[in-house]
């Protein structure tokens, strides 16, 4: 961890705010989120559906549709540039080249009317100015890299001819074609079955070493996070609630929400029939409770939590928590 800190951050997100102005009111999907991604590391983002983890990642390359979305503030420093300030043309040079994306739904993420080859070649031709022949050769190589059998044949296939796992490999090949510095994987294995999921995760880990890229990995699956991530960021209702390295998160979680998440995993060693759950539901982002958004579900909540929300505090080295009572200890008199 300490050696990680010596490395310079590849991506610095500072106080990012991405809001949606919808008919139902203002939705603060990403509210004052700050984090860094260092070179060569995998940062995992976990959280329940609708906690803003996808929007956070979409915001990095300004992929959130505006309107209804709006970047209300903050900075996204990548490679010395503020992604929120650069022109569209400069942004396009970064998308797919230095920051690449893999999305959740392999079945719909590829254009159904273009051949696989053409879709991979497109990235190379846009960013590498390759000729058609060079791009095709490179596309075959990229497919080979993600261990697709018969890449020469697959480049001439349309997406409908491939299975979900294969399509996700194509997505990975496309994302890695230009050797990006940052790969953003938005729940890349959620739609796949477990065996395929394991293969895809192994592949991503291998390729990460091969092309030396950082990964921002979003998932709601804690077992996937345990396998992939170096550090983990936990989000709740548009805010970062805990940030630490992966072992700390699993062994010594401090935010009540993280504690709830970790203890709700099925555990082989207990004899209980029922799984532990966090009571209540994810709050509606357009109608958040005052104070800490987690307070209605939190066993340790006090009046203080209902009135205000804590800052993200470094309670121990490299372990940040946004809670007045980290670890659930009640301080009397507070």
């Amino acid at each position: 961890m300490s050696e990680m800190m010596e490395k310079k951050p590849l991506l610095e997100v500072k106080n990012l705010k991405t809001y949606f102005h919808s008919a139902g009111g203002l939705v603060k999907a990403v509210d004052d989120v700050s984090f860094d991604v260092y070179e060569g590391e995998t940062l995992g983002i976990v959280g329940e559906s609708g906690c803003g983890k996808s929007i956070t990642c979409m915001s990095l390359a300004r992929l959130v549709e505006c309107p209804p979305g709006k970047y209300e503030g903050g900075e996204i420093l990548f490679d010395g540039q503020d992604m929120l300030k650069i022109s569209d043309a400069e942004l396009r040079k970064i998308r797919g080249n230095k920051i690449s994306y893999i999305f959740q739904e392999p079945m719909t993420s590829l254009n159904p009317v273009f051949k696989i080859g053409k879709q991979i070649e497109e990235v190379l031709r846009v960013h590498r100015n390759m000729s058609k022949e060079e791009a095709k050769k490179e596309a075959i190589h990229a497919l080979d890299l993600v261990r697709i059998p018969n890449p020469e044949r697959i480049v001439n296939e349309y997406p409908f001819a491939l299975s979900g796992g294969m399509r996700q490999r194509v997505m990975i090949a496309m994302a890695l074609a230009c050797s990006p510095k940052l790969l953003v994987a938005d729940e890349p294995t959620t739609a796949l079955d477990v065996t395929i999921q394991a293969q895809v995760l192994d592949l991503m880990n291998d390729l990460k070493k091969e092309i030396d890229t950082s990964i921002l990995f979003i998932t709601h699956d804690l077992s996937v996070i345990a396998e992939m991530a170096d550090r983990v960021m936990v989000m709740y209702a548009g805010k970062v609630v805990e940030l630490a390295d992966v072992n700390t998160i699993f062994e010594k979680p401090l935010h009540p929400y993280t504690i709830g998440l970790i203890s709700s995993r099925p555990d082989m060693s207990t004899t209980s029939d029922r799984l532990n759950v966090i009571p209540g539901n994810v709050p509606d982002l357009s109608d958040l409770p005052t104070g800490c958004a987690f307070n209605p579900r939190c066993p340790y909540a006090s009046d203080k939590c209902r009135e205000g929300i804590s800052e993200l505090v470094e309670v121990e080295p490299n372990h940040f928590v946004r809670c007045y009572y980290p670890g659930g200890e009640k301080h009397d008199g507070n």
Partner: protein
Amino acid sequence: MRKYIFKRILYLIVVFFIVSLLMYFLYNLIPSDPARNQLEALKSSLKPEVYQQMYADLRKQMGLDDPIIVRYARWMGLIPDLNGKFNGLLEGNFGFSEFFKKDVIDVVVEPMKTTIFINIFATIMALGITIPLGIYCAVHKGSKFDNFTQVFTIVGYSIPVYIIALIFIFLFAVILRWFPVSGMGTPGANYTGIRAMLDRLYYFALPLIVMTFGSLGGMTRYVRAAMIDALSMDHIKTARAKGVKEKTVIYSHAWRNALLPVVTLIISWFLGIFSGSVVIENTFNINGMGSLYIKGLNNHDYELALAMQMFYTVVSLVGALIMDLSYGLVDPRVHVDK
């Protein structure tokens, strides 16, 4: 692919014969008697017995007393006619128009030219306006321009074409006097070449505008809806994340997908080139296919109406085949070889 087309053509022939049989039977239900029509003029000057004799002879000569299936086969050209020659639809004889006293083929040629001329212009104009407009509205969904277009198109879509025609005549021909009220050319003028063409366009301008305007609403909304669907697909996000230009995202990635539903519409439009609009042609006094068909029906000229009907049958059958084949071209997921 070739096998598929061959099979489809085979079906097409079967359907053609079934439809033609039904049509022939139906048109025979129309109370009209060609033999009586021919002799009607002589009726008063002849003795009733002589008239009856002539009438019976003529019916026999025309083959009207034969069973309907025999008459159908003769008309179709499957068996020799009374002169012992094969002379039916399949041999290129479309029949004789009792009303115009000419072969049907000669009657149809001029109106067909007129109709095709109008329709080609109207189709190109309509597609040329609606497709860019629909795409623009889809891309700028929710903007002021889009909202205005939505209101405008729903109004255009809801007003029947004959009302639009009357309003436009009143506006452009009566008040502004930009275009003539009706007709197909300056009376008495004997233009040739380009001048004749321009004169024609001048006279056809108003019906063209009305036809285009009438089709703007539905078509624009259709293209807009298809494009919005295409733009909301997941792979559009992928394309943007790849760093592709927004223009490429819209006109290549999204439009190719929007084309799948739109292509049906485009092709059916081009097939519609042959069929004239009855309302427009009658309103503007244009001698096209629509008004000819009505004329044929009103005057019991059923050979003419039947021949036209058969022509449209063939056009729509071939059109359906072209449409199915074009799906295979536009959408790789559709295989047209089974």
